[in-house]
């Protein structure tokens, strides 16, 4: 059975239905990409999984447990962690405090310290700025902190919402390297990306979302060959 499974999810913002019967699965050890144009409902999908929104219909199961109506902090405690869209850092906390907040539901002090070291080696820039208030970082720096913060939770499953947004080309490469690296340590990743080329490249499997509906799915490499996908998302 899949680790994370969505079945027929409907979700609404006020009167607007953002998701129409979305079903997807993420298996242990997988990188799954979710691509789609703006407003397709990618972020909404992640919000629903995290419990920030509750689906109007359908079920979400994680590791065999129904989490459709679990509040977000419980979801995190179960091990699903998300680097949300728009960074959402704690602006008036320092970078270091932000990272520590990422490890909020962990109890192993030693492990936390290790994770911190690891994050610092991944992003030297973050280490350099660790005493600065998060709110004063540049856009890209904030993005790095947001990803680092998610890593600090040492999650069982990781969701990244447009991790490459606003990052310099060099850092984008780094990010995808990191994604691979984390995944190879056994953590499944659900990846939402505009940079479809890279996303499909690292993903084992991928889903294409259009106006709230999954229109296509399959192995990443395969989708990258698909004509519609190429036209719409790869810019070829």
């Amino acid at each position: 059975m899949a680790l994370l499974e969505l079945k027929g999810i409907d979700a609404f913002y006020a009167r607007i239905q953002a998701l129409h019967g979305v079903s997807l699965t993420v298996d242990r050890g997988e990188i799954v990409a979710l691509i789609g144009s703006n407003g397709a409902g990618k972020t909404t999908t992640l919000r629903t999984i995290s419990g920030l929104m509750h689906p109007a219909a359908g079920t979400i199961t994680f590791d065999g447990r129904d989490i459709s109506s679990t509040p977000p902090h419980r979801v995190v405690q179960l091990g699903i962690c998300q680097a949300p869209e728009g960074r959402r850092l704690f602006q008036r906390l320092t970078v270091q405090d932000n990272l520590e907040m990422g490890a909020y539901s962990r109890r192993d002090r030693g492990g936390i310290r290790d994770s911190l070291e690891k994050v610092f080696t991944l992003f030297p820039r973050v280490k350099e700025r660790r005493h600065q208030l998060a709110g004063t970082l540049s856009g890209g720096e904030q993005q790095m902190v947001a990803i680092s913060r998610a890593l600090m939770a040492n999650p069982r499953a990781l969701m990244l919402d447009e991790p490459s947004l606003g990052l310099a080309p060099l850092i984008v490469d780094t990010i995808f390297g990191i994604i691979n690296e984390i995944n190879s340590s056994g953590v499944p990743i659900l990846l939402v990306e505009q940079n479809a080329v890279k996303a499909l490249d690292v993903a084992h499997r991928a889903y294409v979302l259009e106006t709230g509906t999954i229109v296509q799915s399959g192995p990443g490499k395969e989708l990258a060959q698909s004509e519609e996908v190429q036209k719409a998302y790869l810019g070829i």
Partner: protein
Amino acid sequence: MNGNILEIRKVTKQFGGLVAVDDVAFAVRRGEIFALIGPNGAGKTTLFNCITGIYPPTMGSIYFDGRDISGSRPHQVAQMGIARTFQNIRLFPFMTALDNVKVGQHVRMKAKLWDAMLKTPRERKEEVRVRDRAYELLRYVGIERFADHYARNLPYGQQRRLEVARALATDPKLLLLDEPAAGFTPQEKVQLMKLVEKIVADGVTVFLIEHDMRVVMSISKRICVLDHGEEIALGPPDVVRSNQRVIEAYLGSQGGH
């Protein structure tokens, strides 16, 4: 006055001990598309903020159209003809798209308090004009059908467009775009490039910050590269692309694109 619409003259911006922009000097020529690139935290947005009066520069001065604008307040800068969009979209979320654009025309309107209170014919005429122009701009960026929607309810891509329309509504001579293509699909990026080219063709100079090299390299005339607040390269795309320092500091493997 020369062909430069904007001159950055040795501008430095410090935050406490941190030098975000370090003695940068370059000029943007009238009618071109000029790009500012550089690694994250290089000081690009900070420079935009200095130009638009959100922060005063610590040292140096900024000339727009031959006038020193350093230290002017944001609304004065907008009045003079510099408009901008923001790295994190900043629309007026609970105003309709149409009203957002109308706000953009604020500086170009003349109605006084009494006109507004008494709804004088003058004011009414102006309102009609403003409304028509707003629709025109929405059409220009391709989101006319969203005119009645609250800005916050627009999809992300349309919000970016709306921000551009709102900026254009101020009748700028110079348009600053901060990462306009961030979060766009390739298709949308192409549309955006077309839009930018259209804007330039209509006589507005565009000065943009962007991390997507395909966008930057294909539309900009000249590029300035910042790293750690310092200017490390300046020139046409080809030159910049092959500059070793730029590749090391910024482009990495993507330099080839």
